[in-house]
């Protein structure tokens, strides 16, 4: 393990270009330290980025919220701006890990760690979030829906850094998204299944966590519901859901349970939007 603490963002991006593969970015550290403990990190280069001011802060720019990559979960859930413009995000992050971790775990860390159970990702997916990725030579926007490509696989290039997450306010403000995280207990829990849901103009954005190799949108369900917003039937809905998710059985839960609770909440969310 070799440690780098670049003085500026520019220097960080240069390091990302220069250093060979096997490098890790350290901001909050809540995931990296677990990996170190499990001997899963040995000879990586570690670049510390938490001190870079460009990666911090929450801003409202016209029609979108811009959240710095290294903003912590508790900064987001306590932020006045977020509470005002996107209370859904603030409220949903309430169950993130524990109060002792939310204070230093970062938003982009949760995204980039690429865990299938990442708590923030289903929320951001229904909010249509985009990532701002920067390298020494380019800055590009990538919709979060396109970020993951497989288990622990992303489209982030070797020389790129997530510098911010942007949330357009059209979903966050105008509609009422819903979210459920199902774990074995209330606090300190890793999701067995998570579902985020929003209905707008008879269209739907629905995303699930812990049900695939990475958190993802449920496109088949969305498509089916957009054709049958008021006359969906349970069987077809379930079949659509089965196309979208590949739940597994592991120590924490069973695939049958994961599918069923996801379906139960999908029905519940649908009913609540139809009745309101």
């Amino acid at each position, binding site marked *: *393990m070799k440690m780098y603490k670049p003085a500026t963002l520019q220097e960080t991006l240069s390091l990302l270009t220069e250093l060979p593969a096997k490098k890790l970015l350290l901001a909050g550290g809540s995931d990296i330290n677990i990996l170190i403990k499990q001997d899963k990190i040995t000879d990586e280069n570690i670049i510390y980025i938490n001190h870079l001011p460009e990666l911090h802060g929450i801003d409202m720019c016209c029609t979108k919220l811009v959240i710095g990559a290294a903003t912590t979960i508790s900064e987001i859930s306590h932020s006045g701006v977020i509470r005002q413009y996107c209370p859904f995000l603030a409220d949903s992050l309430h169950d993130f890990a524990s109060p002792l971790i939310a*204070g*230093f775990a970062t938003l982009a860390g949760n995204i980039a760690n690429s865990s299938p159970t990442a708590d923030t990702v289903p929320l951001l997916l229904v909010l249509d979030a985009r990532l701002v990725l920067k390298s020494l030579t380019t800055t590009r926007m990538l919709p979060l829906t396109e970020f993951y490509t497989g288990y622990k696989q992303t489209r982030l290039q070797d020389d790129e850094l997530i510098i911010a997450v942007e949330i357009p306010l059209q979903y966050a403000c105008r509609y009422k998204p819903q979210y459920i995280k199902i774990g074995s207990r209330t*606090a*300190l829990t890793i999701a067995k299944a998570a579902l985020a849901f929003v209905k707008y103009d008879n269209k739907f954005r629905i995303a699930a966590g812990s049900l695939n190799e990475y958190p993802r949108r449920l496109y088949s369900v969305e498509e089916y519901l957009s054709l049958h917003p008021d006359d969906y039937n349970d069987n077809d809905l379930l079949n659509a859901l089965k196309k979208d998710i590949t739940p597994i059985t592991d120590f924490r839960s069973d695939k049958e349970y994961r599918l069923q609770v996801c379906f139960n909440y999908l029905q519940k969310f649908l009913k609540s939007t139809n009745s309101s």
Partner: protein
Amino acid sequence: MIIKFSLNGKNTSLDTDPMKRLLDILRENYNLLSVKESCGEGECGACTVLLNGLPVTSCLINIIQVDGGSVITAEGISETSLGKLIAASFTETNAVQCGFCFPGFLVTTYHYLQHDPDCDENKIKNALSGNICRCTGYQKIIEAVQLACRKLADQEHKHEDV
């Protein structure tokens, strides 16, 4: 790497592997033994300290993250008047059993009372939900925090009278 930070109100610096856990640095380099290792993965809160004013599990913090910041441990908190008030409340309700998790509870409670000294049981439960205790069933800990809230309110009331 040279790391400079404020520890229990005093400035300090040390030359160390920047990836060392804050927990180990506090125990080994500063002999601050109130900081306990229990689960080692951020799931129990026995190693809780205040980092830049926020309660964090020091087993998941690398010392590089502390550079330029401030750390307060249970040792530091027990010297403050609020810390003493909390300790007295924990003692009064018999909140403590084996005590291994307790310095962590002291730190988290201190932060809670500093920012939002509300007697509401659910708020307290939520604030303490990252600290695991296997002995007490939490009931008397929650009662102690409520007691401390009331004592604090009384004190402020008295100040206003003066």
